[in-house]
C-alpha cells in the first residue's frame, strides 16, 4: 500500500522552465561521461546503479504535475535499466519508459554515460552522482577496493537540496536580461535528427601558457575562439543589430556559500558587437575578457536571479494555473533564447579520490540543443587535460574547424575525437 507520507519538493526557479520547453528537439538533457581504463561490464554497472540511486535523494525522484506547479516526488522504484549506448546522445528522457526517473545511465566500451534532465540538477549535481556511481562500480569490479573502502558515499558528495535561489534573492530587483536578438547560426541539419559531437583534448599546461600570452583566463580564451571562428565564418551577417552573444553559465555556489545539488547557476553573456571591419584574435580575447569580468561579480550575479525569483514569489503569479504559466514561460523563453548565439559552459575541474585515480582515464561532458542554439560547447577538465566539446545539429563543421585550428596555431597539441556522424 502507499505510504501516508511521500517525500516531495518544489522545483527551483530555473527548473520550473525545463519541463515546459522540453521536447524531442529540445531535450534539456546534458551528458557527463567517465572514461575508465578498462571495459565497462553491464551487470556490475547495473548493480552499482541499484546501490547508489536510493542513496542520492536528488536523483531518486520523479516529476509530477500539480494544478499550479510541477513538483518532485520521491520515486522509490527500481533504478533505471543500464543499456549499452546505441543511439545519439542526449535524447529526451521518457519518464514513462524509465521507471519514472529523470536520468539515464548507459555505457560504451570504456565509457560510463550519465544523462540528466536539467530539471533535477545542474552540472555540479550530475558530477557528484556520476562520481559516486563510478566509485561504486569500481568497488564492485575490484573487490579489494570494496574491502578497503566499504560501500559508503564519499565525503565530497553533498546531499543538500536547499533552494539556494530562494535563500539568496534580493527583493525588488530589476531585470538585467537582454532580449535583443543575437546572430543565430543556420545551415543544413544532420539527417535523422543527428547529433554531432567533436571532443578536443587539450593539455592544460599548454593552454595556461597561451592564455598568459593573451592575458585572459582559459574560459575566456575558449569563448573567444568560438566568437573568432563564428565571426570569421559569418562576418557579413554579424552586425551591430545581430551581434554574437555567448551565454556563459556561472556556478553560483562559491559566491553564496551553497552546497545545494539543485540547480544554482545563472547565465552571463560575452557579447561581440562589431564596430569595425577587421578584428584580430587578440582583440576578440580582450573584448571577451572585459565583458565577462564586468559581469562575474556577486552583486551582478545576484541581480540576475533576484528578478526572476522575486516574480516567482508573488502570490498572484503563483496562483495562476500551470497551463497558463507554461504559455507565459514559453513566450519569455523564446525571446531570451534567441538573444544568444550559443552557450559555452565550463563544468570545471573534476577531482576524484586518490584510490580511484588509477582506474579513471578521463571525464567529458556536453549539452543538448536549445531554441536557436543548435551548436553548443562544454569545457570539462580532469587532471592535466581539458576537453573542449562541441555538440551540433549542423552538418557543417566550419566553426569547430576554425576553433581547433586557432588553438593548434597558438601552439597547443590538439587531439580530436568525434562520434562518427561526420564520416557518414
Amino acid at each position, binding site marked *: 500500500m502507499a505510504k501516508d507520507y511521500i517525500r516531495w519538493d518544489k522545483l527551483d526557479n530555473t527548473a520550473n522552465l525545463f519541463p515546459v520547453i522540453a521536447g524531442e528537439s529540445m531535450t534539456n538533457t546534458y551528458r557527463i561521461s567517465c572514461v575508465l581504463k578498462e571495459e565497462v561490464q553491464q551487470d556490475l554497472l547495473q548493480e552499482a546503479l541499484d546501490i547508489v540511486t536510493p542513496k542520492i535523494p536528488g536523483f531518486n525522484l520523479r516529476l509530477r504535475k500539480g494544478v499550479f506547479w510541477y513538483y518532485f516526488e520521491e520515486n522509490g522504484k527500481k533504478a533505471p535499466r543500464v543499456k549499452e549506448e546505441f543511439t545519439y546522445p542526449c535524447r529526451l528522457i521518457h519518464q514513462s519508459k524509465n521507471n519514472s526517473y529523470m536520468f539515464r545511465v548507459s555505457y560504451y566500451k570504456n565509457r560510463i554515460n550519465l544523462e540528466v534532465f536539467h530539471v533535477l540538477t545542474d552540472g555540479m549535481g550530475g558530477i557528484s552522482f556520476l562520481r559516486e556511481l563510478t566509485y561504486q562500480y569500481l568497488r564492485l569490479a575490484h573487490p579489494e577496493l570494496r574491502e578497503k573502502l566499504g560501500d559508503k558515499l564519499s565525503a565530497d558528495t553533498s546531499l543538500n537540496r536547499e533552494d539556494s535561489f530562494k535563500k539568496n534573492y534580493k527583493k525588488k530587483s530589476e531585470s538585467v536580461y537582454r532580449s535583443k536578438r543575437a546572430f543565430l547560426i543556420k545551415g543544413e541539419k544532420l539527417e535523422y535528427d543527428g547529433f554531432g*559531437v567533436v571532443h*578536443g583534448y587539450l593539455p592544460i599546461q599548454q593552454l595556461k601558457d597561451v592564455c598568459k600570452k593573451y592575458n585572459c583566463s582559459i574560459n575566456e580564451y575558449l569563448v573567444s575562439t568560438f566568437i573568432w571562428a563564428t565571426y570569421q565564418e559569418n562576418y557579413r551577417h554579424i552586425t551591430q543589430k545581430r551581434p554574437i552573444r555567448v551565454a556563459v553559465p556561472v556556478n553560483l555556489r562559491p559566491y553564496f556559500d551553497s552546497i545545494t545539488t539543485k540547480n544554482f547557476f545563472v547565465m552571463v553573456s560575452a557579447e561581440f558587437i562589431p564596430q569595425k571591419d577587421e578584428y584580430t584574435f587578440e582583440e576578440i580575447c580582450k573584448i571577451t575578457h572585459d565583458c565577462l569580468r564586468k559581469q562575474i561579480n556577486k552583486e551582478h550575479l545576484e541581480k540576475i536571479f533576484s528578478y526572476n525569483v522575486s516574480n516567482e514569489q508573488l502570490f498572484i503569479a503563483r496562483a495562476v494555473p500551470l497551463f497558463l504559466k507554461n504559455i507565459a514561460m514559453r513566450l519569455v523563453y523564446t525571446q531570451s533564447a534567441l538573444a544568444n548565439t550559443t552557450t559555452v559552459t565550463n563544468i570545471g575541474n573534476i577531482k576524484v579520490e586518490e584510490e580511484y585515480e588509477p582506474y579513471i582515464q578521463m571525464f567529458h561532458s556536453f549539452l543538448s540543443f536549445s531554441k536557436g542554439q543548435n551548436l553548443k560547447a562544454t569545457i570539462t577538465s580532469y587532471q592535466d587535460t581539458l576537453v573542449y566539446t562541441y555538440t551540433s545539429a549542423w552538418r557543417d563543421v566550419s566553426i569547430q574547424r576554425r576553433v581547433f585550428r586557432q588553438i593548434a596555431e597558438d601552439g597547443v597539441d590538439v587531439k*580530436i575525437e568525434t562520434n562518427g556522424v561526420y564520416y557518414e
Partner: protein
Amino acid sequence: MSKCRYCGVEIIDETEHCPLCQGVLEQGGECATTYPNAVVGRRKLHFAFRLILFLSVAAGLICYAINRYVTPESNWSYIVIASLLYGLWMVYIIMKDNAGYRVRILSGVAGAVILIILLDALTGFAGWSINYVFPFAIVLVDVALVILMLINRRNWQSYLILQIFMILVGIIPIVLCQKGIITTGVLVNVVFLVTVILFLGSVILGGKTAKNELVRRFHI
C-alpha cells in the same frame, strides 16, 4: 593516432580523412572508435512510421474514389477515412515515446467518442452517440481508474487528480442536457453521481494519503 596537416590536429577516430576539413590524414599509431553507429536504428524507426502513414493515406484515397464513382448516393468513405484517422491517432499515441498509459487511455477513449459522434452524424444523427455512448465512456474511464488504482496500489493516490478531471468532464453532458442537446437526463445525472462518489470514496477511505496527495497537487 592520425594527423591532419591542414588543421594541425591529431585525430583519435578510426578514419582516413579529417572530420573537420575532410583532408586525407597522415596515418599514425593506434586509432579507436569510441561511439556506436547510431544512424541505422533511427532510419528503421522513421521508415515504419512513414509506411503506416502512407498505407492509411492510400487506403483513404482509394475508398474516397470508389465511393465517388461507384456509389455516389452514400458517403460511406467518410466513415472509413474517420476510422483511419482514429487508427493513425492511436498508432501515433502508442508509438509516441513520452505518452504514458494514462494519456493513452484518455486520448484513446476521447478519440473513440469523437469518432462515434461523427459516425452518428454521418448516418443521420439519431443522437445515440451523445445520449448513450458519451456518458458510458465516462463510466468506462471511471472503471479503468478503479482497476488502475487496484493494480498500482503503491501509487493509487496519483489517480485522484484524474478523478477530479473526470468530474469536470462529467459536467459537460449535464450542461448539454440543460441545453436540450442530450435527452437522457437520468443517465447523465447517474453517471455524474457515480464519478463524484468514486472521488469522495477515494478521499475518505484514502485518509491521510489522499489528503497529502491533494496538498501536493494543489500547492501554490
